[in-house]
């Protein structure tokens, strides 16, 4: 946003809590408590230094789907409105052209000829192409550009503690205003930065934290007149290894779905994803599925088991010589399994890591899906004794929750995949441990994707969202939120590209508003 405003004539001060590299003490400020569905620790999922969490970003990019904007929790605008910002965002994220699903375009690139999509039933599954950023670490990549921007000042080691109300603003006013922020350095020096507008761009967890701590603006926290700040927290639930597909043909290769494909000017990766029709028919959220190729043959192990079963019953199995051939072919796998079982080891001297030219015999299925916005899924300040950080700020509690519709999303996603795998004759799919009981409980390996969204969501109605269509806090004239906290829904796409697109859109809005005001 700051760079997008560099030629606006506006004076911009960018406050960064951390320094220009990782620091344990600063990172400690991110610690918090998990109260809901277990997920990764809050100081692991983000980074607190210049460039923020993009410093460990994996680079996956894709716009949200049009249907994501039109659910029971609508965005204040439609997807088409964001299209031109997505194009600019793609350039900022160092992607190729924003032609994500135009497969014929990618196939026309050198090296793209082999990227064939599965002929899935478009009512059930579709191929969704992601582009992979280098990845762009924003702090490192754009530091020089920021330094060169005459109207932008970057302050490192400037931790914002709270928002300060304007002198004539009253907590009881319907429309409030803020003067700026109260901040401090790591060594305790305190200072204030005032501005005509303040933009909070601190992510889906820290944004509600800062708003809720700003009780001078409103006793319940800035923008929290309707008790919405921190609610509707969403992540992309992720169930790795939720199923396994055994291929009919033992050397099935689906490069579009199995690997990052580097083409001139772009790197793409295909996933299998929800379709609007399937979402409507089953009342489910969006989802995407990664297929990870497996080249470990199971034939020898299975044949050995069958021989043992048959021997215990005092008979010879059908296809005896086939079984013997399988066992000899996979002796190394059998030795590996025996060694690891005997010594409780993860590795053995019998099997090398898979080689790229080993035949692919199956694929692991990783499921990542959209959760339903839920007001009980929330971020709040931890009021427990001692739950404060080194700066005396309340830490947060993340109570991540999902609901029955989310179970349906996960189980239907896997069912739709199994049906399509069978219909297309690719193979058969086995739901793995935990994935057979998604209607009863979440598997232990379910986790989040480090995508924290929805905690200051946009809505036209102040009773339904903290912010308006421009990301301005409804109740406060000059306070904006930027980032994934704004998302009313989360779709299945990684959020970064949409975060950047929204920031560009907000930059336009701010330039117009503040330039008009003079």
């Amino acid at each position, binding site marked *: 946003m700051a760079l997008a405003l560099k030629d606006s004539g506006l004076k911009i001060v960018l406050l960064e809590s951390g320094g220009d590299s990782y620091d344990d003490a600063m990172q400690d400020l991110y610690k918090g408590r998990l109260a809901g569905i277990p997920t990764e620790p809050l100081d692991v999922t983000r980074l607190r230094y210049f460039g923020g969490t993009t410093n460990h970003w994996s680079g996956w990019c894709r716009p949200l789907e049009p249907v994501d904007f039109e659910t029971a929790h609508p965005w204040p605008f439609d997807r088409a409105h964001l299209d031109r910002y997505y194009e600019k965002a793609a350039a900022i994220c160092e992607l190729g052209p924003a032609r994500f699903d135009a497969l014929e375009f990618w196939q026309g690139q050198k090296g793209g000829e082999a990227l064939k999509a599965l002929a899935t039933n478009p009512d059930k599954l579709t191929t969704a192409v992601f582009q992979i950023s280098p990845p762009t670490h924003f702090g490192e990549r754009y530091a020089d550009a920021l330094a060169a921007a005459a109207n932008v000042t970057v302050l490192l080691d400037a931790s914002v503690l709270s928002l300060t109300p304007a002198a004539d603003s009253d907590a009881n006013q319907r429309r409030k205003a803020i003067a700026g922020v109260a901040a401090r350095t790591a060594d305790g020096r305190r200072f204030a930065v005032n501005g005509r507008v303040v933009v909070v761009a601190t992510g889906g967890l820290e944004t509600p934290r800062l708003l809720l701590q700003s009780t001078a603006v409103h006793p319940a926290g800035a923008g929290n007149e309707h008790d919405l700040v921190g609610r509707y927290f969403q992540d992309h639930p992720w169930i790795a290894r939720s*199923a*396994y597909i055994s291929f009919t043909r033992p050397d099935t290769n689906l490069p579009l779905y199995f690997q990052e494909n580097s083409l001139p000017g772009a790197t793409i990766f295909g996933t299998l994803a929800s379709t609007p029709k399937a979402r409507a028919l089953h009342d489910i959220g969006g989802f995407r599925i990664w297929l990870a190729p497996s080249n470990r043959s*199971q034939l020898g192990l299975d044949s050995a088991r*069958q021989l043992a079963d048959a021997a215990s019953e005092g008979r010879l199995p*059908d296809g005896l010589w086939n079984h013997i051939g399988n066992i000899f072919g996979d002796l190394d796998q059998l030795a590996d399994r025996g060694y690891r079982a005997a010594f409780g080891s993860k590795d053995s001297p019998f099997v090398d890591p898979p080689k790229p030219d080993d035949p692919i015999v199956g694929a692991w299925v990783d499921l990542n899906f959209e959760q339903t916005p839920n007001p009980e899924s929330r971020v709040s300040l931890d009021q427990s004794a001692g739950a404060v950080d080194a700066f005396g700020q309340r830490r947060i509690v993340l109570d991540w929750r999902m609901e029955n519709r989310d179970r349906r999303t996960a189980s239907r996603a896997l*069912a739709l995949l199994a049906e399509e795998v069978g219909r297309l004759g690719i193979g058969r*799919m086995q739901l793995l441990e935990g994935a057979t009981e998604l209607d009863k409980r979440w598997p232990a390996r379910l986790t989040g994707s480090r995508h924290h969204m929805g905690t200051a969501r946009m809505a036209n109605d102040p009773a339904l969202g903290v912010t308006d269509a421009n990301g301005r806090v409804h109740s406060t004239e000059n306070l904006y939120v930027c980032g994934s906290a704004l998302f009313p829904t989360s779709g299945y796409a990684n959020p970064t590209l949409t975060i950047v697109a929204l920031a560009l859109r907000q930059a336009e809005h701010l330039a117009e508003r503040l330039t008009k005001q003079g």
Partner: protein
Amino acid sequence: MEFGKQTRASIPSAVALRRRSVLAASLATVAALWSGRGYAVAPQHPATDWPLGLDPAWCFPDRAAAARMGQLILDTVPGHVLAPLPGRPRWPRILTSSAERKRMTELVSRKVRLDFSDGKTVTVDGWVLALTEARLCASLARNS
């Protein structure tokens, strides 16, 4: 008949189906029709859409694997999902020509694809199988 959309059953891991068994028992069904064994052909049963003369025993190159899977299916999948199982052929006619075998291959293959397309599946030990192939295996287990 109402088919169980994703009817699920859990079984002890000790008798869990192996990938090899599943592939042998299900994926090879169609291939087996080409393997030179005898096949029977008959009109489809009006209620079950099942070729009456098709003896499941002839469909599997690895009958033991198919029968084991079939037994698990019988043990764990509600009977109404599978019923009525195809019985032994009443008036089988041995398929001898490649044209007839091809026709039967296509019939079974199409039926399996249709099952998956219509969401007519059963899940046993996590394996998501077409109702047709589950019925074939269950019938084999019952009649063997």
